[in-house]
């Protein structure tokens, strides 16, 4: 049992961490979008749980999508949900701070499914024992691929999936028509040939636009390219032996860097550090193709690009393995220190039941993680059908290792640096690629060596 002074020290520690650099540095204002439906007066009667929601759409839209679901939940159970949307740029920090502090003011949180294994290792999320999982509706109600990324292998899950996503190739139909290209590319060779045809620097138009400044997106793209070449992040399931210095890893990283030297990618891609910036560049016609997850559709469909773009699976290398996406998605977890665990479990059940799944995912242009909901015709129409097919047939889960979030940072930073060097022409070459990958590999090996 913790003594009082230990609890105080823990809380203070969390304060120090949040203050950013432990009183040694100035705090930083975040540009994180935040949104809340907290009542202005105090709530009387019934239980209230606090939910940190991940941001899946522009904030005004996001609120409109969530609110009816929260209202129905309150009507059915009498439990009020204090909903707070937390931007992706600070969500993980807030989660780690919450765990460090041991605070109990937040109950449920939306997490990127690739974080689940790392967060499970922190012991700060409530393990979903068979009994608790049964209260949510049982493992059987979920799509197996989505349920695969909910914790560490061999242990109770710490989350349940509520959104599934996949990666795809978005293309501008009008530009394709003007260039005389009838179908989207299926292989990377075709992709490069099409990208060259679509590039016209005089018109500031390029074959492709990416956000190579976004470490997370680059880690995912690199993971897909590496998987196509038969490589992987680790030689073992436990994640102790990273394999980023292989020839496959070199080739996968070089493919991204060479897009710049072959001048088929918008040079600005090297500076774009979020999918939002990439989406805007695609909407503005800076690139005829982009690689993104299906949630980009929410932005594109609210822009002049609506109806003018198509989607296809991400191309594969000739003779490569059929991996065109990682299994992307969002999970819901309960903080271990929550004082409202039963209410939180009820909330998880409600949100992952068929009705709420259909409503939420239709709104977000995403896929339900609930099997029955996924069969709803709404998710088999138009561009979503392409993503659904990818998710069910050619998406590969990322490694479920305790250090995965750091792995993603290391790998993404290496690819970002490689792309940056290629774009600026500063020291780009095989030596730089090898050096960046080796640095990431050494860092991950050191992390993985931690008991």
């Amino acid at each position: 049992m913790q003594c009082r002074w230990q609890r105080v020290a823990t809380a203070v520690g969390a304060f120090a961490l949040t203050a950013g650099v432990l009183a040694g540095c100035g705090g930083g204002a975040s540009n994180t979008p935040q949104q809340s439906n907290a009542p202005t007066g105090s709530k009387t009667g019934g239980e209230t749980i606090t939910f940190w929601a991940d941001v899946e759409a522009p904030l005004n839209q996001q609120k409109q999508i969530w609110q009816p679901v929260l209202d129905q939940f309150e009507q059915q159970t009498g439990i009020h949900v204090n909903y707070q949307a937390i931007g992706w740029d600070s969500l993980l920090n807030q989660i780690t701070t919450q765990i460090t502090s041991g605070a109990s003011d937040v109950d449920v949180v939306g997490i990127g499914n690739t974080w689940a294994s790392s967060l499970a290792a922190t012991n700060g999320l409530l393990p979903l024992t068979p009994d608790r999982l049964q209260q949510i509706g049982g493992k059987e109600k979920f799509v197996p691929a989505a349920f695969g990324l909910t914790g560490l292998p061999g242990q109770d899950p710490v989350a349940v999936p509520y959104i599934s996503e996949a990666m795809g190739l978005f293309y501008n139909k009008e530009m394709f028509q003007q260039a005389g290209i009838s179908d989207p590319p299926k292989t990377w060779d075709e992709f490069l040939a099409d990208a060259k045809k679509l590039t016209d620097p005089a018109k500031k138009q390029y074959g492709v636009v990416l956000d190579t400044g976004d470490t997370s997106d680059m880690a995912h793209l690199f993971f897909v390219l590496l998987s196509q070449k038969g490589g992987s992040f680790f030689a073992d399931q436990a994640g102790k032996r990273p394999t980023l210095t292989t020839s496959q890893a070199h080739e996968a990283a070089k493919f991204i860097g060479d897009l710049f030297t072959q001048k088929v990618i918008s040079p600005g891609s090297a500076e774009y550090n979020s999918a939002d910036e990439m989406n805007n560049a695609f909407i503005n016609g800076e690139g005829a193709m982009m690689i993104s997850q299906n949630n980009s559709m929410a932005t594109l469909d609210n822009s002049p690009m609506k109806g003018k773009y198509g989607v296809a699976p991400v191309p594969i290398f000739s003779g490569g393995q059929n991996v065109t996406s990682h299994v992307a998605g969002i999970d819901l977890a309960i903080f271990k220190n929550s004082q409202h665990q039963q209410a939180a479990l009820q909330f998880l059940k409600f949100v992952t039941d068929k009705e709420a799944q259909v409503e939420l995912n239709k709104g977000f242009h995403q896929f339900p993680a609930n099997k029955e909901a996924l069969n709803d015709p709404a998710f088999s129409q138009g561009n979503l059908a392409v993503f659904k097919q990818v998710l069910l047939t050619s998406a590969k889960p990322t490694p479920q290792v305790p250090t995965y979030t750091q792995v993603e940072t290391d790998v993404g930073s290496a690819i970002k640096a490689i792309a940056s060097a290629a774009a600026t022409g500063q020291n780009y070459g095989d030596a730089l690629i090898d050096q960046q990958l080796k640095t990431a590999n050494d860092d991950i090996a050191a992390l993985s060596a931690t008991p």
Partner: protein
Amino acid sequence: MQSRGLAWRLVAPALFFELLIHILPMLTGITMSFLSINQFNLANWLHAPFVGLANYRVGVSPASPIGSSFLSSIRVTFAFTALVVLCSVGIGLGAALLMNRPFPGRAVVRTIYLIPYAMPVFVTGILWRFMFLRNGAVNTLLVNVFHLADHPLFWLIGSNAFWSIVIVALWRLWPFCFLMFLAGLQAIPTDLYEAVSIDGGGAWAQFRQITLPLMRPVLSITTLVTTLWTFNDFTTPFTLLGSGLPASADLMAVHIYDNAFLHWQFGIGSAMSVMMLVIMLIFTILYNRALRVGSEVA
């Protein structure tokens, strides 16, 4: 005795909050720097293994990737701080001298000067990010309007990223210097200038013999404060470039944040924070001794 008790009671709330808000977190941070905190013990970090000075050794070891990048970050931060503070003080002083004499529209110009300082920092960062993007306003001016460059430059990646953060930090900071210096200038009695003038002294003599000596306390304090702020700057590089800064712009505050929050190496991040704190303390002590900041007031 009674008045002493009263004094303590009056000071007690301030003392309590000082301890709670500044001292306790700082001591906790120092404690964390001696522990090996990672995701496996995050929820119960008080029981993390004690590793003595190991985190400090990793932080300053040129042989380790973490150490070499941190040492490079210190160098970048020194260069950034020196440039931003010197230029801010210079521009602020120049602008204050210009604004010290009345002229029509002075109030309007003075207000315009203060806009960068009044703007929320993250708004400044985001606006400058848009302008520095490859297809943004900065390149449009350089390439299309003034023809100073043949092709658009990268300002947010590569070696130019350093100049981007310098420009934005300078843009934000100089109005503060201007404000401080203007207040200082307006406190100087005009008859002193008249006396120098009667003795045959020109504008330069007035500046050297009257303005600079009488402005010394304001100059010293402003330089000290702006140096500490700039050395600590997190928001400018973070909003402008995001996390994972290019090596050329890898300022310590964001570097430490990345180590602590993105790599979950909270012990190493804390050790780096303590080292940063020590650097600032040493600077402050040396600066105070050299210039006897504050003694002029007495």
